């Protein structure tokens, strides 16, 4: 049973608001180490020098979108096993399918509650302490 505080997380969203919301929810769950990136490219750069256990990423972003980021992560062996939760504004079936195809671990539909986020985390990591 991993401790939530041990999960180092990177939040990727072009919107400051969404990043702040996700960060607040994560903190309520007990996640301590939280990084942020405004788009896929910045996330990829960050994650390569500072690996994380989990990426929570929006889909639609400038520069490099969530799927591009996912692909980049999975294509690079040292970070390929990073857990990835995709945020989607709509329950877009096609997007989710593609994300699954790209190796997403789970996805979360906005707007979400802290409890929903926690459930997604637990689906990936198992029950959290």
């Amino acid at each position, binding site marked *: 049973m991993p401790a939530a505080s041990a999960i180092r997380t990177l939040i990727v969203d072009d919107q400051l608001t969404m990043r702040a919301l996700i960060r607040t929810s994560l903190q309520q769950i007990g996640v301590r180490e939280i990084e942020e990136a405004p788009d896929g490219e910045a996330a990829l750069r960050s994650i390569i*020098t500072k690996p994380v256990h989990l990426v929570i990423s929006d889909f639609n972003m400038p520069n490099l979108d969530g799927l591009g980021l996912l692909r980049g992560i*999975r294509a*690079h062996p040292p970070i390929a096993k990073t857990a990835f939760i995709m945020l989607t504004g709509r329950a877009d079936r096609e997007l989710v399918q593609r994300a699954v195809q790209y190796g997403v671990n789970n996805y979360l539909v906005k707007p979400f509650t802290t409890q929903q986020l926690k459930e997604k985390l637990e689906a990936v990591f198992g029950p959290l302490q």
Partner: protein
Amino acid sequence: MSDDPFEAIKVTFFQECEELLGDLETNLLALESGDTDIETINACFRAVHSVKGGAGAFGLEDLVRFAHVFETLMDELRSGRKPVDDITVRTLLRASDVLNDHVSAARGAGPAVDAERSQALIAELETLTHGAPVSAAPGAGTASAGEDDFGFTPLTLALDDLGGGELPPLDLPPLAFIAPYAPANQEQTGWKIVFRPHPRLYANANETGLLIRELGRLGPVTVEMDDSGVPLLDALEPNDSHLVWTMTLDAAVPEIDVRDVFDFVETDCDLNITPIMSGAAEVLPDLGLPDIGLPELGVSDLADPLELPAADASAGEVDIAALVALAQADTAARLNGEAPPLEVVSPAPQPQAAPVAARTPPAAAASQGAATQAPVTIRVDLERVDRLINAVGELVIQQAMLAQRVYESGLARSSDISLGLEDLELLTREIQDSVMAIRAQPVKSVFQRMPRLVREVADMTGKRVKLITAGEDTEVDKTVVERLAEPITHMLRNAIDHGLETPQEREAAGKPAEGTVKLAALHRSGRIVIEISDDGKGINRQRVRAIAEERGLITPEQVLTDDEVDNLIFLPGFSTAKEITDVSGRGVGMDVVRRSIQSLGGRISISSNPGKGSTFSMSLPLTLAVLDGMVVGAADQTLVAPLAAIVESLTPKPEDIHLVGGVDPVLMFRDEFVPLIDVARSMGFRDVPTELRGGVVMIVETEAGQRAGLLVDAIHGQRQVVIKSLETNYRHVEGVAAATILGDGRVALILDIDALVTTGRRRNSTRSDLKMAS
């Protein structure tokens, strides 16, 4: 700040909304001008999508509903299922206006949204999207459509049963690019040791310092101590162990050597020894999970086009650019609808194994450049900036006081001291300028609101207008930016309503049916200049003259230049519209615009070319925090007159002074009589009239263009002063605009020229005993 973190985030959300709506408008206008680039459409989509996303998080239902319909249409355009035509773009522009209203309403910063208008636009958007409105009943249909799409019913994704159940099985080729995870090709460069001693370790007379020293024999060691576990003093148990040490050994020695160091204490501590690999700056602590792993999704054993060579990883420089390029190429293909998204057969377009030499393919280099160019910004509470500005204002005053004291004490003769003082002054000025620059903002935020206004006024007047803006990035103090909106709005309305002709008139005059209004901002000699020009009919001077005469503003005999005639429209009580139109009327004339600009220390003028158009131009100071002033003495007081108001200064000759009707003193100035105001008396500093002998008269011009002479005892000099509000520190005093602190530490009042001229005249006319020193 609210205790509720979500309330604070909500504030951020609305700030962000402003930017998003600005982006939306900019991009929609780009679409309107024919730039139907996929990235432009996508940027529009993203803006609306982000507004909706945030609104959803805060439960702003009306906003979500509207944004959703908007977004759906944007999505159709984005996917190419719908063409980007004129009607669509125009509808989108109007929809963005309503979206703006929704955001303002949700923020509590605007009136409630016009439900009818909102509903009508929803219907229009739906018609464009689906060919017909989804529902006739307000809200009902859209709400259900929203629910479906928002997935308020959570869709739990069990990754292993994706093949069946709700989602259809994937009929896509297996992934080519996911290489089997192999931690190979990495070189170990050292060890990371996380060491948490148990109390027993200390009880056994072991010590962390000794262990670190021992470890240091193996190679260079960096140590970090985490004392976050140390409780507050009253809860501190001295025999407990609270510290966690993280040691980084920069030497690839065998693990056994490292373990040896901790051999004796291993049972008395938590010890975690992990290898540090090159390629990643840090080693991720192991979560102790069996494998959070990749879903088994047909990972192919095809070579990964991006598998990085060992050399690359060992250099610690991962080829991010190539990774990004790959990901971006893939994204682009997806956005352009080029299926399938994944190449199964051959990873041809990628360079051979992306060697280090080919690290920057052009596309990646470009995007990298863009990434580094993006300015890094922080958001700071305005109050903090103002506090800083205030402190710097004090610094400027202190510096001036110090300089004055040094000179008075004669110390300045020592060249060391005077050099030091000069440096201090330069530095102070530089700090002041830098601080002012913090408050400086581009006028973009105001300019961005104008296209909407132009659209609405054009609709109302039946004119066709194209707005061109220039110099949006021109920066000016935040306070000035905020107060620019009103005069610009007014002048734009005026330009469209009065300046531009109807399409028929324009065509008859051989002009394009669509009129052009240009809004530009530029810096000119330490001030910001805003110009609003139109290619309309220009000012009808005969009519302006006739009206001015009719209203008694000028006499029929008065000889005026063309420019003077044009500028008559700024006089109070002047309005050329025969009937006050709904647009530029509202009982507010150009005189109000002029007054609001002058209250900012600015000036406005108009130049016109009959048949060709007119140009309004206003110039404003870049900041309201400092003022160029003339320091004068009246009675025993030191006063500051705003330099901008002073036309010239002169020593009055007794023969130039006359009494009008035996009451009002006037001064003959350039063949013109101007009222003469005795400042010391007018301000109540002195009961007896000021002696003319030795006195000085400043000819000033009020905001309304009236001239007057201010009689003072002496002029001390010209100086830049820091403005301190009198209202904040004391209360409003008639005739005084603000205060400042002079170099010698005394407070000096800054004269409110307009008020002084008005009241001064009144006082003069009630007491006619200004003594003529003849």
